[in-house]
C-alpha cells in the first residue's frame, strides 16, 4: 500500500508509531506530562478509597459526621504529622536541591 498509514502500520499487528512515541518536542516535558497523568490517577485512586472509607465508618457508626473534619491531634501526634509532611516534600523535591547545588 502506498498511503502513509499502511507504511507506518503494516498489516503485522505492531502498534502504530511504535510502542512508546514521544509526542512533545522536549522528551523531558513529554515524560513529565505522562508522570502528571499517572500521579493524578493514583491521587484519585487514593482519594476515592479514603472517601469510601469515611463513608463506611460513618454508615457503621464508627465516626460522627464531622469527626475527621474536627479532629485535632495532640502535640505528639501533630509533630509526627509535620515530620511525615516534610519527609514527603523532601523526597519529592530533592532533585531541585541537587540542581541548586550544582549551579
Amino acid at each position, binding site marked *: *500500500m502506498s*498511503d502513509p*498509514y*499502511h507504511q*507506518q*502500520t503494516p*498489516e*503485522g*499487528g*505492531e*502498534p*502504530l*508509531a511504535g510502542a512508546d*512515541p514521544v*509526542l*512533545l*518536542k522536549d522528551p523531558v516535558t*513529554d515524560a513529565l*506530562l*505522562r508522570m502528571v*497523568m*499517572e500521579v*493524578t*490517577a*493514583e491521587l*484519585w*485512586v487514593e482519594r*476515592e*478509597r479514603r472517601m*469510601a472509607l469515611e463513608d463506611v465508618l460513618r454508615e457503621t457508626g464508627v465516626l460522627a459526621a464531622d469527626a475527621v473534619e474536627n479532629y485535632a491531634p495532640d502535640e505528639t501526634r501533630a509533630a509526627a504529622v509535620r515530620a511525615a509532611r516534610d519527609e514527603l516534600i523532601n523526597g519529592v523535591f530533592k532533585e531541585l536541591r541537587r540542581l541548586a547545588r550544582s549551579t
Partner: protein
Amino acid sequence: MSAAEASLIPQPTSRADASYLSFLEGLREFVLNEERGLDRDLDRMFAQESERRGQPFGDLASITAFMEETQAGPVRNRMLRSEQEMQWRRIQKTFDVNRAELEADLAAFDARGPGQLILDPDLQTPAYANVHFHLQPGGYHKDPLAGHYYHYGTKVFFRGLNDNERVHKGAAAATPLPEDGQVHRVLDVACSIGQSTTVLKDKFPDAQVWGIDHSAPMVRYAHRRAVLLGSDVNFAQRLAEDTRFPDDHFDLVYAMILFHEIPTRIAREVVAETARILRPGGVFVVHDFVDTTHSTPLQLYHRDFDSRFNGEAYAQEFCHCDFSGMLESAGLKIRRVIPDGYGFMNTWWADRAG
C-alpha cells in the same frame, strides 16, 4: 444501567483498578467533551487563527502544521495517547488476575443456549485484521480475553455514554424496515461482543438473528453475554467478506462501525457479499464515519491523529472513499444517508432492488 446489565460488564478485580479506570473516563471527558472540554478551546483557537489569516484552514498539512506550533495541540496528543496506553495496561492487569477463571468461564458457556455458537478453528485471520485497533493489546483476536478487554475498554472509550448499551440501543431503534416491512432474518456483520446483535433481537423478537465476527474471543464473549441475557441469537466465527450464508437470505444486514476498520479493497468485498446475501427488497444498514468534506479542522486533525497514533489504520482510507458510490456499484440503492449531527458518523440505509 440495570443491575443485570451492569453485571455483564466484567468487573475490575480491585477497587483501585475500578477507580483508576474511572479516572481515565473522566480524563477523556476533560479533553473530548464538545461543550466544556479542551477540544472546545481548540475549536476556538482554530476559529481565531482562521480569522487572523483571513481564510479558512485548507488541507490537513496546514492544520497539522498549525497544531504542532501550538502548545495545546501536542499536549492533547500526549494526553489522548497516554490515556489509551494507561487504560489498556490497567485493564490487562486487572483481568489477568483471574485469567484462568475467566477463560474457564467462557468455555463453560460455549455449548449453552438458547442461541448457538459456531467456532471455526481453521479460519485464518486475514492479515488486514492483524492491527492493534485503538491500541488494544493483541488486537481483537489474539488474546482469549479480547472480548473482556474490549467491553471494558469501550466503556472507558465512550466515556460512559454507552453504559447500558445506550449507543447501540439508540442506533438500532432507528433501524428501518425493508420497504415491504418483512423481517425474518437479520445479520449483524463484524458484531464484536454482540451488543447490537442482542439489541436487534429485542427489536425483531420473531426474527432469526445472527452475529458474525472473525475473532473467536469476540464471538465467544458475545455468546456468553447473550446467554446471560437470555437472548436467542446465534454467533459464528466468519468473515464479513465471506459469510457462508446462502444467496438472498437476509431481510436486514447491519454493520456498526465496521468499515473504517478494514481496507477499502475489503470494504468492496463486504458490500458485494452483503448484496449477495440480502434478499431482493432487503435493507443494508451501516453506521460509520463520515467523509471529511464537511469536517472542522479539529475533526480532520483528530482523524489523522487516530490513524497515526491510535490504531485506526484504515480510517483515513474509509473517510476518503466514496462509500455511497461503493454501495450503489454493488447494486444497492441508497434510501437515506443520515448525519449524526456531530460531524463524526453517518447512517446509510441501502436497499437491494426488489
